[in-house]
């Protein structure tokens, strides 16, 4: 399966937390990250992701370890858009990045604020006290890339997951995944989520 892992999932995968509450998220993220190392799933990310991961990791870890973590991420990703490990695609991507830009631009006007539909209240993680989700430019870069690549987006950010799901993208919310579902994803299987 072609996966886009959001920055929060990758930070969860790239350090072992001291806090017990975060340990289950780390275990899930780490299992999926290992499936990408093993080549069962293909990790593709836009270039903004390793930058964001680097800024967060460097707050959590000493800078040499944070750098090593980002290096691991770069090694596992088969594509850090617009750069790929395939030299023939590299020459095309300077052109397709224009399409990406246009897609981001079109999505930017839809994503600032999304009003939640009360009919969706059965989805995992529904918070009835919040009536809308607020997204920013980084979210647009991430979701537009998943759309461009026809990839499955995995995020632990409910707001981004909801927006992606409403767009009709294949997307999963990490906290809402059971251990069995994480195992299935790690084995390259598409799960029935909703």
């Amino acid at each position, binding site marked *: 399966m072609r996966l886009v892992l959001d*920055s*929060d999932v990758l*930070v*969860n995968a*790239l*350090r*072992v*937390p*001291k*806090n017990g509450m*975060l340990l289950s998220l780390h275990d899930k993220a*780490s299992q999926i*990250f*290992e499936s990408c*190392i*093993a080549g069962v799933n293909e990790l593709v990310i836009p270039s903004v992701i390793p930058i*964001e991961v680097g*800024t*967060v990791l460097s*707050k*959590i*870890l*000493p800078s040499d*370890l944070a750098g*090593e*973590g980002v290096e*691991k991420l*770069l*090694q*596992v990703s088969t594509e850090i858009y617009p*750069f790929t490990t395939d*030299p023939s695609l*590299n*020459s095309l991507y*300077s052109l397709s990045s224009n399409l990406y830009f246009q897609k981001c631009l079109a999505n930017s006007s839809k994503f600032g604020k999304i009003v939640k539909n009360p009919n969706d209240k059965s989805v995992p993680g529904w918070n009835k006290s919040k009536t809308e989700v*607020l*997204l*920013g*430019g*980084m*979210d647009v870069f991430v979701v537009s890339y998943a759309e461009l690549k026809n990839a499955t987006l995995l995020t*632990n*950010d409910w*707001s981004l997951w909801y927006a992606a799901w409403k767009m009709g993208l294949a997307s999963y919310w990490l906290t809402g995944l059971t251990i069995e579902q994480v195992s299935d994803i790690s084995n390259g299987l598409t799960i029935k989520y909703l």
Partner: protein
Amino acid sequence: MQKIQIDKKIKALEEQVELLKSFGSKQEPPLTIEDYRKYLDKTRKAVLEFIEPTEYIRKTRIKGGFY
């Protein structure tokens, strides 16, 4: 005016070609699960600050401090 714009585009493409050349020639050994787990072990005792990644990133994406 148009010539300047074309020159800028050509320069940008040339810079991109140079960047791509260096990226393409980079021969990295593939990461193994063992390497990854060794790295994780090092992070186990090195955490400097408690940060909940999702909450932190959400705040920086839409509510970063304004100075």
